[in-house]
């Protein structure tokens, strides 16, 4: 603890403040707000009621106005702290609002109506978590079906991505053949082609293959990524060729060299690509929306869009479900990041 604090609080200026210390602190604290603020806001807002979400000025924590049932009124009334003309404050319930004035009633004396200027009253608020934002969708929204679709697409696409890309990377890094660098260049060049350009031809291919309204139609077009090939190839270039020569002398077939030597040694790069692939596929929206038109095939991201209707956006459900969809990605990252940082324990080479 002492050492961690010393590490975090140490300054270039020693006891004083060097200007770089100030810039560093401003930069890091600003960064913390910019990066972490929205995530925090999302988390708290997902527990707000629709009314609290619409409130201005917005709050970070989910507050709700306290309600009270008053005799003679069917609906519960909202409770306010009111400053009376004589300077005393009292808790009153609002019956109705007319222009700049509000008709209020003391819950203890329901017969007596008091006219109050709206500026002299403040709602009584309390912290409350609207958990129905989370439970609601599970009941009237086919959450588990969408979740399963999303998991299926993500897991399958990631597995195939890792295998296909590592094979391409193996060939491009460990085999000498004519046109090797040209092939690599062409693969990298496809990075410059955005999805919107190839969307229509891709759609005709998927349609011709009969993969329309099929989860494989979402998976297959995404599995060969130039980024993945590039990451893995650069990593495989660092694996010494002598290891592969040694495996060849050890009677290993080319497949065994790939599967038993190169792939295990590429684990850190595979972990990076796996994280990328999971995040990409999990958050994919446009392509699944195009390919999937039957509701029971929707992935989570497409399914969530049904909460934003033409006239009405149910923000409270969208926020809550966004939090839920974030969880797997965060878990995958926490699980895989160990592989990135540890790398391979020993190299066996000098």
């Amino acid at each position, binding site marked *: 603890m002492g050492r961690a604090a010393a590490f975090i609080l140490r300054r270039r200026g020693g006891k004083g403040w060097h200007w770089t210390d100030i810039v560093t602190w401003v930069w890091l604290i600003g960064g913390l707000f910019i990066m972490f603020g929205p995530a925090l806001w999302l988390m708290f807002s997902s527990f707000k009621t629709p009314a609290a979400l619409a409130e201005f000025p917005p709050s970070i924590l989910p507050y709700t106005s306290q309600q009270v049932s008053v005799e003679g009124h069917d609906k519960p009334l909202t409770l306010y702290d009111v400053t009376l003309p004589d300077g005393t404050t009292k808790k009153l319930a609002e019956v109705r609002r007319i222009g700049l004035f509000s008709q209020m009633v003391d819950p203890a004396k329901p017969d007596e109506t008091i006219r109050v200027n709206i500026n002299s009253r403040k709602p009584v608020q309390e912290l409350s978590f609207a958990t129905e934002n989370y439970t609601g969708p599970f009941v009237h929204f086919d959450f588990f079906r969408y979740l399963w679709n999303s998991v299926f697409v993500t897991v399958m696409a990631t597995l195939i991505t890792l295998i296909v890309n590592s094979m391409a990377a193996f060939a491009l890094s460990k085999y000498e053949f004519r046109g090797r660098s040209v092939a690599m260049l062409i693969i990298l060049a496809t990075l410059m082609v955005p999805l919107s350009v190839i969307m229509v031809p891709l759609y005709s291919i998927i349609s011709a293959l009969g993969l329309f309204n099929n989860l494989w139609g979402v998976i297959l077009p995404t599995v060969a990524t130039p980024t993945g090939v590039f990451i893995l190839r650069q990593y495989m270039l660092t694996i010494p060729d*002598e290891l592969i*020569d040694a495996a060849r*002398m050890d009677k290993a077939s080319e497949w065994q060299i790939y599967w*038993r030597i190169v792939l295990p040694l590429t684990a850190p790069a595979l972990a990076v690509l796996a994280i990328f692939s999971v995040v990409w596929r999990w958050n994919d929206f446009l392509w699944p929306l195009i390919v999937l038109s039957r509701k029971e095939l929707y992935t989570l991201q497409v399914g969530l869009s049904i909460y934003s209707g033409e006239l009405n956006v149910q923000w409270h459900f969208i926020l809550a479900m966004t939090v839920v969809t974030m969880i797997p990605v965060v878990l995958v990252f926490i699980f895989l990041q160990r592989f990135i940082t540890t790398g391979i324990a020993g190299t*066996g080479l000098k």
Partner: protein
Amino acid sequence: MGQITLSNVKKSFGNIDVLHGINLDINDGELVVFVGPSGCGKSTLLRAIAGLEKITSGEIAIDGKPVNDVTAADRGLAMVFQSYALYPHMSVRQNLAFGLENSKMPKAEIDERITEAARMLEIEPYLARRPGQLSGGQRQRVAIGRAIVRRPVAFLLDEPLSNLDAELRVSTRAELAALHARLSSTMIYVTHDQVEAMTLADRIVVLRAGKIEQVGTPLELYNTPANRFVAGFIGAPHMNFLEGTVSSVQSGNLVVALADGYQLAIPARETSLEQGARITLGIRPQHVTFGSGDKSIKAKIKLVEALGSETVLHTEVAGQKFLVVIPGQHDLASGMDIDLSLSSAPIHLFDKDGHRI
């Protein structure tokens, strides 16, 4: 059996010729060392024999059968790499077993062979460890073990000691020699270190620029180097060369004039040298002694290296560098003039093209 025959083996990378027609017979059970300066093609030749490089022309035969079109895996050879090339993600046992599993050997036999090799190389305690957890010397043994368990026709070793520190190198060298005696299988050993070559080899093959300069036992190479290159390469410190011209040829005597007018009489063997021919004298630093007399030269000391058991003198003779190794300790300093006697030194003569006379 492990007889390897190379006939006119050529290899080029693009238009760069690396090997220019190598002819060599390696007998069964022989330890042959390929030695030469870096870039001479010795590693390429070894990789060609291993089957890791395709040769451009010529023929490689193992036990009389041409293997040009046989893959590295099926030539029945095992190789120890300079970097050891152990599989970092496998334990020592898995490293040893990998090649055997690939040839579909029964598990019991694999275990038996690993146990035997591990005992021979004293790596039994480390079988469960990964290469990263071993020291350099232990990794080296595992690399050799991986070759031994294969029971190959011949072992190919590519500078296996170059990654070890000096002390370990000496002890491992002795162990390798013992191992060769025990296994009595053919070994081809590549090194640029002529001391390793001298101590280990049954026969040494000296390579330069893709050509064989000389093949012979270590002492043959030391005593009768075929040319100036071999003479300079074998022996440490390297042989001294003095340039001169033949000033007179008499029966039984050859008088050579060095640059500064020194006249040196050498008992001549049968020679067809003519007066005025350019000639190089080769004298090993260890064969020079102090003393004046009829076969002596004057030298000026430039640097004294006192090693305790011997003293290395960097001197200048007739404007040319001349190394002297004298046993024992001597009170000498740079700048002094001394007389060196060559009366007990075998003098090697090389003609103007560097060939031995």
